[in-house]
């Protein structure tokens, strides 16, 4: 089945140790998104790619970076994780141009723990 896959599902890292989360999709969608969802809160958009064009949200900390080497893969890099970065990280995709009509399809998320 076509889907959005996130690896790993659970990631533990140490304070300040760089970590990379992975997302892949078999939907061949143009747009890929990364959201941060803290406990009992709504998902918060960090950034998205429309094809190779990167769009960063104004309030996304510089500590968070992303790479999209091809259509299928997108990575979230946290350069120096702090305790406040512990959260569920959700990857999503949408087809089209990512406008308001787009329906987003989400992966299962990666739960990041920072020790």
């Amino acid at each position, binding site marked *: 089945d076509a889907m959005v896959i996130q690896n790993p599902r659970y990631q533990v890292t140490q304070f300040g140790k760089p970590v990379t989360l992975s997302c892949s999709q078999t939907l061949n969608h143009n*747009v890929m*998104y990364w959201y941060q969802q803290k406990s*009992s*809160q*709504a*998902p*918060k*958009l960090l950034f*998205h790619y*429309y094809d190779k064009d990167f*769009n960063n*949200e104004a309030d996304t900390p510089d500590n968070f970076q992303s790479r999209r080497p091809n259509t299928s893969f997108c990575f979230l890099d946290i350069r120096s994780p702090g305790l406040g970065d512990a959260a*569920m990280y*959700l990857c*999503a995709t949408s087809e089209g141009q*990512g*406008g*308001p*009509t*787009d*329906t*987003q*399809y*989400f*992966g*299962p*998320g990666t*739960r990041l723990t920072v020790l």
Partner: protein
Amino acid sequence: AQKVTQAQTEISVVEKEDVTLDCVYETRDTTYYLFWYKQPPSGELVFLIRRNSFDEQNEISGRYSWNFQKSTSSFNFTITASQVVDSAVYFCALSEAGFKTIFGAGTRLFVKA
């Protein structure tokens, strides 16, 4: 500015009861889209419905129904004859021109057997 309010933090019902999840939104755009997503304990957000601002027709899909009223800026979601498998967090979301989708804080629904 965009805003989505889900005033109900948690709702607990007994199986077979009907339950309505409220969603109130704010926007200055005339063209916008509203969504409902379900997030079960596994964590994945599952798309349920999309509605554009020009279509106020209510929709029914099995046990799910949605009531969109522009006059009150509400897009409420009703589950009829709830089941234990409906237990999840439900998010209402709003999207205007541009990429960003704003999610409400979510309503956690507990359905007890």
